[in-house]
Structures are given as C-alpha cells and as structure tokens.
C-alpha cells in the first residue's frame, strides 16, 4: 500500500509574518489558529501592522471577525505608542537635573527612536538605564515627580538593590504607568559582566529631548539578545526574537555592522548570547546573516553536548503552537525546555550559594512582608 501524500504543514503566524502574501489564500480555520498563536506570543499587533503595511489588512478573504481583531490590535498599539511617547517626555522632564545620560531601553526605545522594531509592539513598562552613581539621585527625582516603588517586601527590596541590575519597579501615582530603572543590563551576580560605562560612552542622544539617549545599534541588538537568551521567563520569546530580526535587518543596511557587532560582543563579554541568537534568527525568521559571521561564531559556543542541548531547547521555545486540538503548553518537551531555562536563567544570574538561598526563600514564602529573614 502506498503512503498517502503528506498534507502541507498549515500556514502559521511565522510564515505569514515572513510572507504576508500567504494571507490571501488562508481559510477561516487557519485564521483562527493564527489568531491564537498571535495572542499567545504577543505578536497580534505586529501581524496587524505587517498586513497593513502590505495593504492587506482588509482582505476580502479574511473573515470579518479576524479583521476586527486586527483593527483591535492596531488600536491598542497606537494607544500604547502614544503613552510611551508621553512617558518619555515626563521622564525627560523629571530627570532634567540629573547630570547624566538617561538611556531608554527596549520597547520604549524603539518607539521614541522610530525604529522598525516599534511596529505593532505592545508593552507595559518603560525601561531606562542611568549610571549607578546617579541612581539615588534619579530615584529621588522620580519620587518627587510622582513615581513610587511598588515593592513592599523588605527582602525583595534588598535583593533588588544588592544584587540586581535594576530597582524594584516604580509606578506613577496618577498615571499608573510603570517604570523600571536599570543601572546595568545584567545583575551584578551574573556570569557575564558587560560594563555599563562602555555602553553609556557610545549611547546616542535622542533629538528633541534633554537627556534621553538610546543605545548604539550594536549595543541595542546585544542588549535585546542578552535579555532574551539569559532570561528565565520565555512568555514573549517569539516576539523578542521578532524584535531582534527587525533590528538586525534595519541596522545591517550599514555594511560595517556585522564585524562591528562581533567586536563589540567581545568587548562587552556578550559573545554567548550572540552565539545563541544568530542561528535562531536565521532559522526562525530567515534574517539575512553573512555566512562568514555564522561560521566565526560557531567556534565560540559551549562544548558540543551543551550546544546540542541548547539548540534543542531553543527549538521548543520558538516552536509555533501546534494545530488546534493539541496544546503547546501541555507537551512534555516544551515543559522540560521551560524548566531547564528557568534554572539556567537563575544559574546565569547568580552564584550557586546565593541561588540556593534565594530559591529557598522564595519556596518557603519567607520573602513576603512581615516575615524575618532566616539566619543563613
């Protein structure tokens, strides 16, 4: 008996984002599946933006209900962008007396700088980075202008201030917007130590603002890679990888970009995130990366077994959701990958003894306000 022909794999979110023209031939069931994927990965805004950019958002072949969801996403995206621009202005005003650069990071940076990675990007917090020696002054200026720390527990406050790369999140009393103030891009306890002074030195001032800057192109890409590939929370992994794709395509229009990126990664001790990121970008989003760069990078990875394990983990993390009827979240391989990443994320950010102490405190719930710390 001959095997029946394999049906072609269903067209999913990643395919449509790479080739929007595929949207013209999709049936209602495929659109339902894409909606689910887009919601789960935080990419509905980007999808809507992409289709709109190609003049495809009001397709005759797209169900009216799906068009409604795309319109909804565009609306949310527009509102959040306006909010990000407003927040940036408020932050610039609040930190007017700070005699230091204030670097916008991540989503807010893409929006304020008008980068392609801002397309359809939705986000909830604004992230900034200030030099460590100005941190106290920045915190008090922000407090004067209405931002308050959201962290109640004494343990968590100390944990943040002693070990982390950022203050506990601050929330504005009236606008309810959240602000994360960083002083470096990785915690003090992390295995990789990119020196913040190097990043401040090459930060690019934003025209029309007093103090606001964004990271240089190589640093912005490396920061985003580090954030994704050293993290333990993978809930927005595919979206973060999509941001990286858009950033890379935009910056690599400059011919010197790739060699600069390699050099800078070595300067900032961030070669490992680069090793993780570039092959995934190429595999998932077909980001055009010179072969020479990929070859050079392949020699800089971890040992073979670890490298193979990591590649397998990233395959699970960036896998599109399976067709309706099976649930991505249920599969054991994705659960195993997530568990491994959770531990790895902590491992990379803390030395062993501190990690054991931190995880036990969390597990025993001793970090909640009002409980004393265990004598350790």
């Amino acid at each position, binding site marked *: 008996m001959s095997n029946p022909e394999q049906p072609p794999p269903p067209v999913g979110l990643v395919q449509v984002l790479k080739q929007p023209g595929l949207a013209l031939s999709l049936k*209602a*069931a495929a659109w*339902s599946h894409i909606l689910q994927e887009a*919601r789960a990965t935080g990419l509905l805004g980007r999808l809507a933006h992409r289709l709109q950019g190609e003049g495809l958002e009001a397709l005759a072949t797209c169900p009216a209900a799906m068009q*409604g*969801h795309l319109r909804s996403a565009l*609306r949310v995206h527009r509102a959040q962008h306006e909010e990000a621009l407003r927040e940036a202005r408020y932050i610039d005003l609040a930190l007017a007396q700070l005699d230091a650069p204030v670097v916008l990071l991540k989503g807010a940076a893409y929006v304020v700088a008008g980068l392609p990675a801002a397309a359809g990007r939705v986000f909830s917090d604004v992230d900034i980075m200030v030099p460590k020696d100005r941190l106290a002054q920045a915190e008090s200026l922000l407090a004067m202008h209405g931002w308050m720390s959201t962290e109640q527990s004494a343990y968590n406050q100390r944990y943040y201030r002693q070990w982390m790369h950022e203050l506990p999140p601050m929330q504005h009393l009236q606008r309810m917007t959240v602000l994360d103030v960083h002083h470096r891009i990785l915690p003090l306890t992390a295995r990789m130590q990119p020196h913040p002074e190097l990043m401040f030195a090459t930060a690019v001032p934003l025209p029309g603002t007093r103090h606001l800057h964004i990271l240089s192109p190589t640093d912005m890409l490396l920061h985003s890679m580090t954030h994704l590939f050293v993290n333990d929370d993978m809930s927005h992994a595919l979206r973060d990888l999509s941001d990286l794709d858009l950033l890379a395509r935009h910056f690599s229009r400059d011919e010197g970009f790739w060699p600069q990126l390699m050099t800078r990664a070595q300067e900032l001790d961030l070669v490992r995130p680069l090793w993780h990121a570039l092959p995934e970008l190429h595999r998932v989003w077909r980001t055009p990366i010179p072969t020479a760069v990929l070859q050079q990078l392949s020699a800089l990875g971890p040992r073979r077994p670890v490298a193979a394990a990591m590649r397998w983990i990233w395959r699970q993390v960036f896998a599109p959701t399976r067709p309706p009827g099976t649930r991505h979240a249920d599969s054991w391989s994705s659960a195993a990958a997530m568990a491994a990443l959770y531990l790895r994320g902590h491992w990379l950010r803390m030395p062993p003894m501190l990690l054991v102490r931190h995880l036990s405190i969390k597990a025993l719930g001793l970090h909640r306000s009002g409980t004393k710390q265990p004598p350790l």
Partner: protein
Amino acid sequence: MTSTVGELGYREICSLLRSDQGLRLKTGPFGNRIRSALPQVAQAVANLYGNYPLLQKDDFIDFDVGVSRPSGLRRWWQPQVSFQLDGNAPFNPLPGDQGFPLLEWGLNWCVYGMCHQYLILHAAVLERGGRALILPAPSGSGKSTLCAALLFNGWRLLSDELALLDPVSGQCIANPRPVSLKNESITVIGELVSDIEFGSRVHETSKGTVAHFAAPKAAVDSASSPAWPAWIVLPRWQAGSALKLQPLDKARTLMHLVENAFNYDVYGAEGFELLSQVVTRSACFSFEYSDLGEAIACFSKLSHQAGDGLASSSLGWSTSG
C-alpha cells in the same frame, strides 16, 4: 439550515464538550469553542445555550475557552475550577463548583479585555423599535434586575453586561448570552416571571448565589441586528423609593459613560467623539425605583415617545405627585 445547540441533545453536547473538538457555537458576533469535562458545566450549557447556532469545524473561532479542574492534589481536596483561553490559564482558579459562572465570567473577560474593535461599556442594552436603551451602571445598582424585567416585557436583549459600540456605525451590536442574577434578584425576578427557568444556580461564590437564565429565543435569533442608541438611563434601585425618571444633562451623562467604559483609554480622543455622538442623539435620564412593575410601565411609556435627544427635557416625570 444552520442547526442549533439544542438539536444535538444532552448526550452529544456532553460528548463534544469533553472532546478535543469542543462545542462550537456563535454568540453575537463571536465564534466560541468550549471544552469542559465538568458535569455542572455541561448541564448548564445544555440548559442555557440551546438556541444558539452551531458552528462547523472550519468556521472562524474568536475564543477557544475551557473550564477544568487544575491538575494535582487539589483535585481531591477542596477542588477548584480554572478557566482557560487558548490553552492557557490567565487567572487563579476559583474554589468549588463555580464552573459555569466562571465560564460566563471568562467569556465576558474575553470580550471586554480583547475586543477593542468595539468601545465597550459596562451596561445593559435592550432594543425596541430598532432603538437601543443603554443602562450604564456598576454592580449593585439594580441594572441586572431591571434588565431582566424589561427583557420579558417588550424589550429585546442585546446584552445584560457589555454594551458593544461600533465606532464606525455608532450602533450597539447585539451579544445576548445567558443572563445572570444574584441573591435577592433571583427571588424578585422569579416572582415576576412565573415560568422562568434558571439553568444554573451556584451558591457560595464571592458574590453570594449566582443564577443564570437563558436569553429569550427571539433575542438570540436577532443577534445579527444592531440598534441605534436612543435612550441612556442611569438606574438606581432604592428600597421604598417612589419612581423618578429625571432628565440628565448631556455633560453628566457623558462623564458617566466614560466612567463605565472598559477601554476608553485605548480609544482616546476618538472615544470622546464617539461617546459625545451617542449622548447627543440619545435622551438621557437618571432613574430611581423600588417597584419593578412601575419601572416596566415607565419604560414602556418611554419607548413610545420620540427617542430624540433634543426633546429630552419634556420626557421626565415621576410618580411622587
């Protein structure tokens, strides 16, 4: 040609709810795929969704939802129920057997949390003669009881909870679903409507007893017909009070709509324009009552007047003399 959920029969409804395929049905403009292995959910769905059109496997689904017991030891000790959307649980589980109210609450959350193609108000909406009566109010104002009374007395239900305003047309979109009542309201409406059947009744929720009855068949059958906003009435039930329907100035009404809008911040200036237009074209009132019979008569009288915002000042009256 479209068949309804009721034509399937209880056994098949249960079987579909338990299967990976799920029970696929349309509510208002939304396609839903519902999965649950819980008997209480199956029973309530069979009782309350019989009139809704079934969807085919290839039809578009807006919300893929489920209610289940979270896995683990809690299955046997103080069991809980959990709501899922797209296979993920966005909230903490609720205790006990609140599966069906949780499903309803979850479906509402899907609409007001994710459907920003509409400007959504926390309001009941009813229609008569193609015109919409909007009752914007937070919980505890008596809006649900009033809505329930009116939908049995000449008004078509569009929604008991969520007013969906289409920003393009300015119309209210119908999304009738099982109507929920709490505590004393259950008794009051039970007395008013002798043959009412509550397809689900759950005690010990955080709000007390919550019961649901089915939206009338006529409302479900007309779910694709929108309505033009014509009356905005802010209701307030007050024990022993005389009935009072008083004109409300447009600015106050607009503020009230903004306060009761779920996604006003997403709409920004356009939201202001849209709500201003709705307020301008509508007759706006505040309404206080204690007797449902009087309230029903009052709204019946209202529906025979011109729903013209300009004439609102002549439409107020009260029973106090």
